[in-house]
């Protein structure tokens, strides 16, 4: 019995160690992949066709989902805050709150969540399938750099499209708030947008866009790295996709906090 307990303790210890080692190796692989991607940025012009195609896939195609999420997200936000503020006769603060929340946090966050599910998962699955069906090896055999051919266009396109879609999400989120303000809170459209434009701060805008830019880099790199590390057929591709989505969500939250803390926590 004692020996059994000792063995279980030992295997728990080694399993944890193996997981940590695996995670550290994967983090290193992802960081090296980001570095290699930056090195291949010199091929941006040559790969412009592929970049535009990826921008269409990860950006334009996800616009219908973004529209619904942003519009209803904004409406929910306005409804909750408006109903509470109306109790104190402060519902005219809703436009200010809406633009601030959307600009500072929700625009980039909502867009990142959508893009992770929509494009990040697709990237991991696509590259994972290519990996397990030896297409990546075939590229290497043809002396074609998979990072320049596959990863760089995806990363660049997402770094462009995530901030762009964030602006789109912010506009629609605020518009959603406007609808609720008009129909539920008795704020006229003119008054709502007047207050919204008055409350736009440059710092909020560039911090929000910086977040989107960083999230775009993170989501695409993590997704591509997971795809390139996939092994073991369909099961491996599924696992790579799942891990890429979960890791992206977690890192969006963690990095989101640190960027907020950096700009609004008294550091800058």
């Amino acid at each position, binding site marked *: 019995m004692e020996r059994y307990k000792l063995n279980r303790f030992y295997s728990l210890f080694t399993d944890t160690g193996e997981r940590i080692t695996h995670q550290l190796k994967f983090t290193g692989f992802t960081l090296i992949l980001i570095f290699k991607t930056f090195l291949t940025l010199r091929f941006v012009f040559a790969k412009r066709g592929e970049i535009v195609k990826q921008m269409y896939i990860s950006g334009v195609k996800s616009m219908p989902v973004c529209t619904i999420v942003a519009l209803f997200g904004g409406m929910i936000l306005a409804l909750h805050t408006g109903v509470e503020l109306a109790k104190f006769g402060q519902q005219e603060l809703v436009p200010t709150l809406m633009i601030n929340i959307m600009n500072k946090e929700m625009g980039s966050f909502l867009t990142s969540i959508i893009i992770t599910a929509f494009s990040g998962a697709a990237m991991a699955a696509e590259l994972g399938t*290519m990996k397990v*069906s*030896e*297409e990546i*090896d*075939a*590229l*290497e*055999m*043809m*002396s*074609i750099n998979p990072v320049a*051919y596959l990863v760089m266009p995806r990363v660049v396109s997402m770094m462009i499209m995530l901030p762009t879609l964030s602006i789109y999400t912010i506009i629609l989120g605020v518009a959603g708030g406007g609808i609720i303000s008009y129909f539920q809170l008795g704020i006229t459209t003119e008054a709502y947008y007047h207050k919204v434009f008055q409350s736009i701060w440059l710092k909020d805008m560039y911090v929000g866009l910086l977040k989107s830019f960083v999230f775009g880099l993170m989501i695409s790199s993590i997704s591509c790295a997971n795809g390139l590390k996939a092994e073991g057929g369909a099961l491996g591709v599924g696992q790579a996709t799942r891990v890429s989505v979960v890791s992206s969500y977690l890192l969006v939250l963690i990095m989101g906090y640190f960027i907020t803390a950096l700009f609004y926590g008294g550091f800058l």
Partner: protein
Amino acid sequence: MIEFRSVSKKYGSNVVLDEVSFNIEKGETFVIIGLSGAGKTTILRHIAGFINPDSGEVLVDDIRMNGAGSGVRIRLRKKMGFLFQSGALINWLSVRENVALPLVEHKLGSMDEINRIVDEKLNLLQLGDAGDKMPSEISGGMKKRVGLARAIVRNPDIILYDEPTSGLDPVMSARINELILKMQEKLDVTSVVVTHDMESAYYIADRIAMLYNGKIIECGTPEQIRASDDPVVKQFIEGRITGPIEG
């Protein structure tokens, strides 16, 4: 042309190659046979520089492939073509674009020249009409032929074939075997073929090596292999259930 010097490779505790040594001459068709999972593809992957041995040396054109920098690997790979088991065609490119890919990516000629080379290779492999089709629209045999067209589009000195006839009907297998011979006659390439299709091996090989338990247990001409006294080789080439081969 290709030399293995005491190459060993383990995956976990599983010894796949154990001090394997052989030499392949220029222009030779060298066939490696063995059970599934015996390590045949591992040999090809060593030659292509995808993996490094745990010990020993892999030489291609007298240059050490294992441990070489990426520049040397790229230079050596430019001399090679690889026919992958599944064809490994890029899914979103048409047959023509797949074959043209290495030429387009390395800008090896004008578009007219590239089109001419691609047409020549497609015709050589009887794929003239399939140029505009997508990989999802063609059969397994056609995928292999497209993979082969792509492998030879840069006129390589070495072609590595991973199970070129697996999953194909007998007619298509015979056609692929003919193509491998045609490649050698027309382009004077060195071919390394991994297969467990004995009919194919006898037909195309200059020499056959049998890999078993991580070691080359027999290596010789097809006639020598046919006449081998080794019980493992005999059981394998005759496809008998009973014998020394385990499992």
